[in-house]
């Protein structure tokens, strides 16, 4: 089998070429709607790091549904930092992979969320169905587009925002809240696996009357896909979505990148990081660093936080989103 052996050798040779790692390489594993923001932020950080006397730094990005990304890090994707949609996905990395401490969220200011966002409605131009608030979403004949809370971080924020509004509106009557949620999900014709997929379905495929979306995603969609075709509707209340960031200690130490990775995360809180976040429609935690024109774009609305309403992510996940929990119950009742 001389021939086969040659092929085999060739395959081994080809396989053993290590993936190119530049002098200083950082891997940031993130979720879907942060693509544009981190593209610009990485360039800014590289310049900053160089000015500060560091090596040339190249940040590689990996984007995908927040849950899938978390899973990949657990399975061995060697992220130096993760910037995901919700705390639970980083909790899972800490719990299962144990590659960062369980109290990771206390290591950075504002529960490790350098920017926040919220959930708003994107409707078609002129808002033909007259959708103003969460209550309208459960009305018959309204098509609601949201991704699947099982696979999308944004969709979980959508769900919790609707739930919080319903609790307030129905005086915390659990049965009524559930009825409302069931009615809302009856209006959902498609459950995309990620926020981007849902946006595409709504915008490109013309499906549904309203898209439940990250605020930043709604602005971006409007900007990228047609300001004259879509309008943003701000509901009476929503949830403060806090997409957290964290250093994956085990990987950073293995790569010897802890210093630069920590600087990377710190830079998110720095004036330049905050300015870029605002530019990309994320609400900066230090609005004073944002371009005033950017800051003015964020409407004021009543925002509840996860902590005050639902507790931490581990509890919230168990209550609502694990197999057989409230989301599954509501969907079964649909």
């Amino acid at each position, binding site marked *: *089998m001389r021939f086969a052996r040659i092929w085999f050798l060739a395959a081994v040779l080809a396989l053993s070429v290590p993936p190119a790692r530049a002098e200083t390489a950082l891997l940031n594993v993130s979720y879907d709607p942060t693509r544009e923001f981190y593209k610009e932020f990485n360039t800014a950080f590289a310049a900053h790091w160089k000015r500060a006397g560091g090596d040339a730094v190249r940040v590689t990005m990996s984007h995908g549904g927040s849950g899938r990304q978390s899973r990949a890090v657990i399975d061995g994707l060697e992220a130096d930092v993760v910037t995901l949609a919700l705390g639970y996905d980083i909790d899972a990395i800490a719990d299962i992979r144990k590659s960062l401490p369980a109290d990771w969220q206390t290591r950075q200011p504002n529960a490790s969320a350098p920017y926040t966002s919220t959930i708003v409605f994107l409707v078609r131009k002129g808002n033909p169905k007259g959708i103003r608030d969460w209550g309208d979403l459960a009305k018959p004949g309204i098509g609601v587009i949201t991704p*699947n809370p099982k696979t999308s971080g944004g969709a979980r924020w959508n769900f919790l925002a609707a739930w919080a509004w319903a609790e307030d509106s129905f005086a915390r009557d659990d049965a009524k809240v559930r009825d409302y949620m069931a009615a809302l999900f009856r209006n959902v014709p498609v459950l995309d696996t990620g926020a981007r997929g849902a946006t595409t379905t709504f915008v490109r495929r013309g499906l549904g009357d309203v898209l439940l979306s990250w605020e930043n995603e709604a602005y971006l969609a409007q900007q990228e896909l047609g300001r004259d075709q879509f309008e943003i509707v701000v509901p009476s209340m929503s949830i403060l979505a806090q997409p957290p960031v964290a250093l994956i200690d085990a990987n950073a130490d293995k790569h010897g990148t802890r210093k630069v990775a920590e600087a990377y995360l710190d830079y998110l809180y720095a004036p330049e990081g905050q300015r870029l976040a605002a530019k990309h429609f994320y609400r900066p935690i230090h609005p004073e660093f944002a371009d005033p024109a950017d800051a003015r774009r964020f409407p004021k609305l009543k925002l509840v936080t996860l902590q005050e309403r639902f507790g931490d992510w581990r509890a919230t996940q168990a209550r609502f989103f694990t197999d057989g929990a409230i989301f599954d119950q509501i969907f079964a009742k649909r």
Partner: protein
Amino acid sequence: MFARAASPRVIPGFGPTLGFTLAYLSLVVLLPLAMIPLKALGLSGAEVLAIVTDARTLHAIGLSFGAALAAAAVNAVLGTLLAWVLVRYDFPARRLVDALIDLPFALPTAVAGISLAALYAPNGWIGERLAPLGLKVAYTPLGIVVALIFVGLPFVVRTVEPVLEALDAEVEEAAATLGASWFAGFRRVVLPLIGPAVLTGFAMALARGIGEYGSVIFIAGNLPMVSEIAPLLIAIRLEEYNDAAAAMIALLMLAAAFALLLTINLLQAWARRRIGG
């Protein structure tokens, strides 16, 4: 040289080729696939029962099978028609059409899914023509069938073509001399001869359809209990860090796929014996 005397091997290379085949197959296919039952073994009997009787799981598996079955059935008819036309008739661009048949093998499934969704969505080129008829394709189970028809189309065509090509014209002529009409000649003489090939293609399209993921998720709608396919459910279970449940569903699908393929191979062996393929 006992082994040699027991089974004469005139042509050399039995040991090396079979050895390489088995080693390669074990390393690339069997060992990795063994992870599925291995992982599913971690479940207790009650957990297994809970998974395999869960309404949503059953619906997803049922949908994957049902849609694949429907698509394979359509492909059996469509594929036979295409094979017939390609083998029997000469028309402009015949070669081009013949080459196009393999496109679904080659086009990335995700691209196919996006294109099909774009075409069949309510505002798509085909979708907007079907909408007035009250027919919704994209984001319904029907959309899944359409995607699976695309994915499985080559199988029946490619299994039936060579059989039709090799078909003895005298057999058809004999039928005609016995007074058979065109349709009777096709149904009574041609169809039984190409039957095993059609069935093989059907089963292959079915086996492929059950597991298809990339092209389906873009057009399916993915609603649990409505348009959620089994592979998507596996992906969801994985993101819930529930590997054992994912492996259990995968095991059910693997078993089904293996049973189907074994049936195909036995069917082919049987057909060879019966009509000397």
